[in-house]
């Protein structure tokens, strides 16, 4: 740009003139040059982040519409809208305005349903996206920080969802808030104070809806937007990861250029997500607040549950027994100034499982990095089977989550499968401990078995299903050898070895180092080495040599 001798650019069309005008003032051509043909790898599992982003955009659009009609006031009013079974009832203005959106504002109901379905999809897409990132190892260097940003986004989206769920001030969400209040009050020392400050006095008070409204439409969305910006910025800096395959390595990125193909697909996908949500909202009711009635602290409905993303915390509360072998889990601790109450039956399930899940989630990239001492950049993903221990840890965590998730619907499991509610709880309590262990063992073995199958196929080809009878009467199945490209997909991975502890400069293997070595064994002791060229060649020669060996293994014909 330092050259000055060039004649100034003269645009020929009117579009060109406008573009040039903007470009001369903001320098867009540099950006376009940088990003216009940026390459993005293409795989269906890479789309969940986009689903989350697009759901969020839909949430902003539909949410803006809803704010035009919603009134977050807890003042009392009498319903006078068109829904007959609630006519004349005393209720809060918030609930009244939500009913009006549903029944008397044209298009209000579809917008409410779009908003709520999009919210459920948003959190689900964030979750699935994180599972994809975890199981493919996309969180490894240099993307650890982006993984953390993603974790923060998950927490923010849960908070955003919960605050929104509470806004209509219906019976269901009101009881949800009451549970939250009960959990807050269990916090030692400050619990009661936090509760009184949050609700502006005693539960339910008259302040909570407008306060949650502020969080829901301003603070949390702003934080989400900021995090999304950071997240996407880092995606651009890092460039996207790619699955292993021929021609793909840590030094390149293979895919379609942003313009036109990728931009068209990604842009079109926004409309697809929007369309799917709109169709679902056209045909399926969500959160029928008119069924639940206005909030009143006395009634409750059977099947009172939170939206799915809070379900696991609610499930943990359900699973926790209040009494363990005749020992109460509420302790009255005598202090010099009096007796105080520590209510572990609420505190433990509310804090411990979520604590475990999020601590491990945030720390995992560093744990794995410490164990493997791997400081290289990774842009090629692992197929989940090629990292058996990581996959097993992920599955164990997922099952841990799912047991609590299922517990949140224990009453519906009981009625729908005609089993005893108490038995469902007993079984889930057992699964809470056994499930993750079983999941770990099984998924690790399945990964190893799949790796062995890959190895088998890479070396010996696929079973064709074609049975041939040999001249001496033996039957055998023909195997089709893979071409080089397909084979490389099966063998192009790393299988690290377990490491012994490394002595420090004084020649001593420290305790930390021993622990690292133990973890390294835990991770990598059982392994399937990728098939090598040498083995393939040896295999072919071997066939000729061993034709009449003990097992008379037949030779592949391809």
């Amino acid at each position, binding site marked *: 740009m330092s050259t000055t001798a060039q004649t100034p650019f003269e645009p020929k069309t009117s579009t060109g003139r406008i573009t040039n005008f903007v470009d001369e003032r903001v320098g867009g051509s540099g950006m376009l040059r940088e990003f216009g043909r940026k390459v993005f790898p293409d795989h269906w599992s890479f789309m969940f982040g986009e689903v989350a982003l697009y759901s969020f955009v839909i949430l902003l659009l539909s949410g803006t519409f809803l704010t035009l009609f919603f009134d977050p006031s807890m003042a009392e009013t009498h319903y006078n809208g068109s829904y007959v079974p609630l006519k004349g009832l005393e209720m809060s203005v918030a609930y009244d305005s939500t009913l009006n959106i549903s029944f008397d504002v044209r298009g209000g109901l*579809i917008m409410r*349903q779009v908003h709520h379905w999009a919210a459920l999809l948003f959190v689900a897409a964030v979750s699935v996206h994180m599972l994809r990132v975890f199981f493919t190892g996309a969180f490894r260097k240099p993307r650890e920080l982006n993984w953390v940003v993603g974790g923060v986004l998950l927490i923010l989206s849960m908070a955003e969802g919960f605050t929104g769920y509470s806004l209509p001030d219906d019976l269901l969400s009101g009881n949800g808030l009451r549970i939250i209040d009960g959990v807050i009050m269990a916090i030692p020392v400050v619990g009661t104070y936090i509760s009184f400050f949050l609700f502006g006095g005693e539960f339910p008070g008259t302040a909570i809806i407008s306060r949650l409204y502020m969080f829901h439409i301003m603070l949390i969305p702003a934080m989400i937007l900021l995090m999304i910006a950071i997240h996407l910025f880092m995606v651009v800096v890092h460039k996207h990861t790619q699955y292993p395959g*021929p021609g793909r390595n840590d030094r390149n990125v293979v895919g379609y250029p942003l313009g036109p193909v990728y931009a068209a697909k990604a842009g079109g996908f926004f409309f697809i997500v929007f369309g799917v949500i709109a*169709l679902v909202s056209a045909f399926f009711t969500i959160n029928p607040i008119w069924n639940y009635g206005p909030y009143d602290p006395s009634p409750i409905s059977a099947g009172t549950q939170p939206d799915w993303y809070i379900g696991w915390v609610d499930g943990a509360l359900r699973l926790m027994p209040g009494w363990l072998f005749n020992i109460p889990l509420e302790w009255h601790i005598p202090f010099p100034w009096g007796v105080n109450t520590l209510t572990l039956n609420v505190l433990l399930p509310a804090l411990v499982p979520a604590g475990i899940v999020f601590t491990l989630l945030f720390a995992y990239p560093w744990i794995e990095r410490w164990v493997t001492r791997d400081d290289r950049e990774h842009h090629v993903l692992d197929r989940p089977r090629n990292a058996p221990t990581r996959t097993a840890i992920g599955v164990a965590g997922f099952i841990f989550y799912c047991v609590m998730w299922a517990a949140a619907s224990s009453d519906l499991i009981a009625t729908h499968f005609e089993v005893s*509610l108490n038995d469902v709880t007993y079984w889930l309590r057992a699964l809470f401990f056994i499930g993750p262990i079983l999941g770990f063992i099984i998924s690790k073995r399945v990964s190893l078995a799949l790796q062995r199958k890959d190895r088998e196929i890479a070396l*010996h080809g696929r079973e064709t299903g074609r049975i041939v009878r040999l001249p001496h009467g033996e039957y055998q199945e023909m195997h089709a050898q893979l071409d080089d490209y397909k084979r490389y997909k099966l063998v192009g991975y790393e299988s690290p070895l377990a490491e012994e502890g490394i002595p420090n400069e004084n020649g001593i293997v420290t305790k930390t180092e021993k622990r690292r070595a133990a973890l390294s064994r835990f991770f990598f002791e059982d392994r399937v080495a990728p098939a090598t060229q040498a083995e393939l060649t040896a295999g072919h020669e071997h066939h000729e040599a061993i034709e009449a060996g003990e097992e008379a293994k037949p030779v592949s014909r391809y």
Partner: protein
Amino acid sequence: MGNHSDDLPASSEVVAKAGHDEVEKFQDPGLPPHRLRLADTDPKAAKRAERQVAILFGISAIGTLLFFFAYFGIRLDQTIATLRLQNMFLGLGIGFAMLGIGTGIVHWARALMPDHEVSEERHEMRTEEDRLAAVQIVDDIVEETGIKRRPLIRNTLIGAMALAPLPAIAILRDLGPLPGNAMHTTLWKKGERLARDPDGTPIKAADVTIGSAFHVIPESLNTLTEGKLNEKAKAAVLMMRLDPDELHPSAGREDWAYNGIVAYSKICTHVGCPVALYEQQTHHLLCPCHQSTFDLTRECKVIFGPAVRPLPQLPITVDSEGYLVAQSGFHEPVGPSFWERS
């Protein structure tokens, strides 16, 4: 080697314990050769794809029209049926409008835009040259501020910065009143009549037959003009009548029931849901939120679920007119546990 008998455990030595040597790896064969699509070679196929894309865009336009038809054409007459119809067609309209554009663009991209995969080099995240320059800049900045040489400035700044956010916390003080005694009191007091929820009419002892469950509020609740829900949230009571022989009151609580009529706080001692499910044969009370189960015959002792404490009992009797009244308030705070609760 070449048939499935290789899967036998005897030959599974490939699952190796650590220590195997890495041997020569496969060479990356590079990107597979590009395969042409039908539309790349056959102009007819390309033309067909073009028409399909145009049809999809056309469907989108029809969807938008459908939206307008539903919005203006379907007149809401305050019945659920028309609302459902309108909701469905509005959703269908938006759905088709969006899906038409989306699938159209994607089909265009898949069928007609070039599908050559390209490979782009990744650049180093940071160059060593940049790092050195950055370190130099930071050093220069630190040096120019002189913060290292002037610890007084540094320390007072740290102190001031640590103090400065405190007002941001203090200013939140007026979010709500302090708890005070609020958690320990309810509307229930000596002589307060038990009344039906929601209409607030008092209940006579004779009205409560065996097997009945009454949802009860204090009679004075409905006269409140402010804070009605706050008081209701603490004062809600469930009243049932059992055969007096089935109750097993502990010492000092023998006269808390009246002729087998017992009243217990409806607010769960776990996290505060209304424990409203009464099974009149088993005499169990069940909380629908977290399934805490209380045994009414044993003073609502917890027999299942996450709650620890029994539901607080409201001592009741009858007044001179035969109406059920509270003998006193609750003898302990109702609802979930909290730190100050002894």
